[in-house]
């Protein structure tokens, strides 16, 4: 009979279970070498340069790879892995590499490494996130293919015409040329992005095909190399490469510790279990000044928050309605009270981090003026009901509600915030031309040029122009700017284009982002750059 001594059985089972639970882990909490730091991130989506557009992955890749250019204080590109990047006509660019660089597996870095990596990145069927960065290179279109019966149809897309871009040519082992399909003065800024890192021969299983497990332990040309593999959802550890030819970091190793929740990360920062958090969440900001003192700091980043007016909704077609709504909003109150100063009011259409930015290009239309707003709104017969649609998973509700209250108070109209579960749901509605009202949107730049705001956000074919704004004069000015001979001439054209936006008000600029970061008391020299990445070259462990 089993039932003779149920107590002993139960107690024994409990004991076994407890022992199992206890023995399950070795708990060897990193034998933290003195000169190493731990930086908090979230789980990267990918660790292949051309497939990485979110900041977690690009932070990690930034320690494993060394870019062709980096940006100085004035946001101008400066050669790093490249000896020189030159062009006579802004169409054909010659890249000369610095000699002596190797990948962490010992392979020398040659021109082919760049050409192969970029071709792989641009090849449509590889489905890389950052493939659009290669769009400007001649022959990009031949690497894409179109599904003959649309994506819902049963037929598969045919293979693209080519596997390599005609615009990339090797001159010798350390030199290659990039031919663009149209001149672009800002090209040197573009190739500083993660997508333009080289890949070693060891990364490829066969020409154009990456090894399946390459991203579990990427091999780069940077100052650090992987220790072991990517421990998913836990951490990535990178060690210094001995004899690195570029700028040498001051720490021996970095642990990229993965967090699912920024609030948990913040508590570990307070408890000194990690050294750097690049983005302190709003929920923790209230206590952060007290917890961290001057170990909490701010630096500008490229985030730009705004709301767009869908052009298919006729009640917003009068620019005066759009202007009045913009003037009805007190941006400063919003950034101070809801964002506790973590963001700054936006009164122009491009971020302050790009050259050519003017602090007040939107002029009076972005200045809080409820009387004038009401006057203008009444005269233009604006709608009596305003809706702001946002995605509820991004913490937008507090400020959308505040903005609605401001609109109500200033204009005397009814305003409601309409939450959608996810941004994708919001986009689906916009694409179906449903009356969503004002659309909550945001933008993070890819490279520090005005064009990276004007092009994607406001030009007719812009990738993030979901609201459908279209102005030929504006499109032409952006294009002329991109093709201008010098960066200065380009900025001039782009500023003229921005002036058109100030007149048309296709969107209401709301806020510019800032990095609000914190660090532990054992490190110094912590800075966070425009791309929200911690500077791994400057960070240092205090010696005592």
């Amino acid at each position: 009979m089993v039932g003779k001594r149920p107590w002993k059985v139960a107690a024994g089972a409990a004991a076994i279970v407890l022992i199992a639970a206890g023995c399950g882990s070795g708990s060897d909490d990193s034998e933290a070498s003195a000169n190493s730091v731990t930086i908090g991130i979230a789980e990267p989506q990918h660790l292949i340069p051309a497939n990485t557009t979110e900041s977690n992955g690009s932070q990690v890749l930034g320690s494993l790879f060394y870019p062709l250019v980096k940006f100085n204080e004035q946001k101008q590109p400066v050669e790093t892995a490249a000896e020189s990047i030159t062009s006579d006509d802004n169409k054909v660019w010659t890249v000369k590499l610095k000699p002596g660089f190797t990948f962490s597996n010992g392979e020398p870095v040659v021109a082919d490494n760049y050409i192969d990596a970029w071709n792989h990145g641009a090849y449509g069927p590889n489905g890389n996130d950052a493939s659009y960065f290669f769009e400007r290179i001649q022959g990009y279109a031949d690497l894409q293919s179109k599904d003959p019966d649309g994506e819902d149809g049963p037929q598969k897309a045919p293979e693209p015409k080519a596997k390599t871009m005609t615009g990339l040519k090797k001159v010798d082992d350390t030199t290659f040329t990039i031919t663009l399909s149209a001149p672009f003065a800002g090209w040197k800024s573009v190739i500083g992005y993660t997508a333009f890192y080289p890949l070693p021969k060891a990364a490829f299983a066969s020409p154009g095909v990456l090894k399946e497990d390459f991203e579990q332990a990427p091999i780069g040309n940077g100052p650090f190399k992987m220790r072991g593999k990517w421990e998913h959802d836990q951490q990535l550890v990178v060690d210094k490469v001995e004899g690195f030819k570029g700028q040498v970091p001051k720490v021996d190793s970095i642990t990229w510790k993965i967090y699912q929740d920024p609030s948990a990360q913040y508590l570990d920062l307070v408890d000194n279990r990690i050294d750097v958090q690049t983005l302190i969440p709003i929920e923790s900001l209230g206590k952060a000044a007290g917890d961290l003192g001057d170990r909490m700091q701010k630096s500008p980043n490229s985030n730009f928050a705004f709301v767009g007016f869908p052009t298919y909704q006729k009640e917003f077609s009068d620019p005066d309605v759009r202007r009045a709504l913009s003037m009805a909003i007190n941006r400063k109150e919003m950034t101070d009270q809801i964002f506790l100063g973590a963001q700054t009011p936006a009164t122009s259409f491009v971020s302050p981090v790009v050259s050519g930015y003017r602090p007040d290009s939107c002029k009076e239309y972005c200045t809080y003026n409820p009387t004038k707003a009401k006057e203008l709104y009444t005269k233009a017969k604006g709608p009596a009901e305003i809706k702001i649609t946002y995605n509820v998973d991004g913490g937008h509700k507090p400020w959308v509600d505040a903005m609605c209250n401001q609109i109500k108070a200033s204009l005397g109209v009814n305003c409601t915030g309409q939450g959608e579960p996810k941004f994708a749901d919001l986009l689906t509605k916009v694409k179906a031309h449903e009356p969503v009202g004002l659309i909550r949107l945001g933008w993070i730049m890819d490279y520090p040029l005005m064009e990276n705001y004007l092009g994607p956000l406001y030009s007719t074919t812009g990738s993030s122009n979901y609201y459908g704004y279209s102005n030929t004069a504006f499109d032409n000015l952006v294009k002329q700017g991109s093709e201008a001979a010098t960066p200065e001439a380009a900025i001039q054209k782009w500023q003229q284009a921005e002036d058109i936006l100030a007149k048309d008000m296709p969107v209401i600029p709301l806020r510019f982002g800032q990095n609000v970061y914190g660090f532990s008391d054992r490190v110094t020299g912590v800075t966070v750059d425009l791309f929200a990445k911690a500077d791994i070259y400057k960070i240092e462990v205090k010696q005592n």
Partner: protein
Amino acid sequence: MFRYIVRRLLQMVLTFFGATFIVYALMFANQTDPIQALAGERPITDSQRQVLTERYHLDEPFIKQYWYYMKALLTGDFGTSLTNRKIADMLEQAWPVTLRLAILAIVIASTVAILAGVISGIRRGGAFDNVTLLVTLVMLALPIVVLAPLAQLVFGIQLGWFPPTAGGDASLYELLLPALVLGSLVVATELRVTRSSVAENLRADYVRTARAKGLTGKRVIGVHVLRNSLIPVITLIGVDIGNLMSGAIVTEGVFNIPGVGFNLFRGINTEDGPLVVGFVSVLVIVFLVVNLIVDLLYAALDPRIRYE
């Protein structure tokens, strides 16, 4: 007994397919645009959309998608997530830590619940009974979204007794605080059930008989009453084990434990059908097995129960 187990196992197969089918259907109905969901607010190029749609069969009808999934599953292939990780690997990483967390929580919770439940059952209306009544009331009223960050702040940061987060290969000590929080979810109900069951059995005829026989109070309570009172509690604990594993979403998030709850949350967020179904499939099996064990335990506790 043997025939009973075989019959139950056969029923499990049916339940398993039914459950996965329903979950897959729900995920499919919830899917608006998984590619955009994964990309967040970043725009997606046409050719990328095309590639991903075809890679994950997103354009095919539901039955076909389910068929592809099941065909792979039956050959032991859980498929890949939308971020191109093998779901089998993700399961392998997530399960151990969740299992340890859940077991630790259930051990703590049931020990506390049974001990306190028996005492308050015996001394009904006493001070101890009233205090536990109040405490369990508060515990039932406190949602985990409040309790978990609060415990983390007080015991992890202010008092510094426990580390504030646990991580993937956490030690027993690191898991203790999350386990306490998680256990508090179920301790209140388990305690109440124990209490009322003990109180009821104390008035049963066989207890009077035992007392009349002159048995010591210890033996009457410890063997006669307890054994009979445990049947409903065991049922509850069995269900709770399953609940704790699947319902640890908040706790795992707060304490940074990349376990099952976290993966489910991520999968639902990115509309990642295969990821969610993969984890749910294993959960279903856990539920079924635990329930079978619970049913078998009845027989051990109460000799009147026989399975044929």
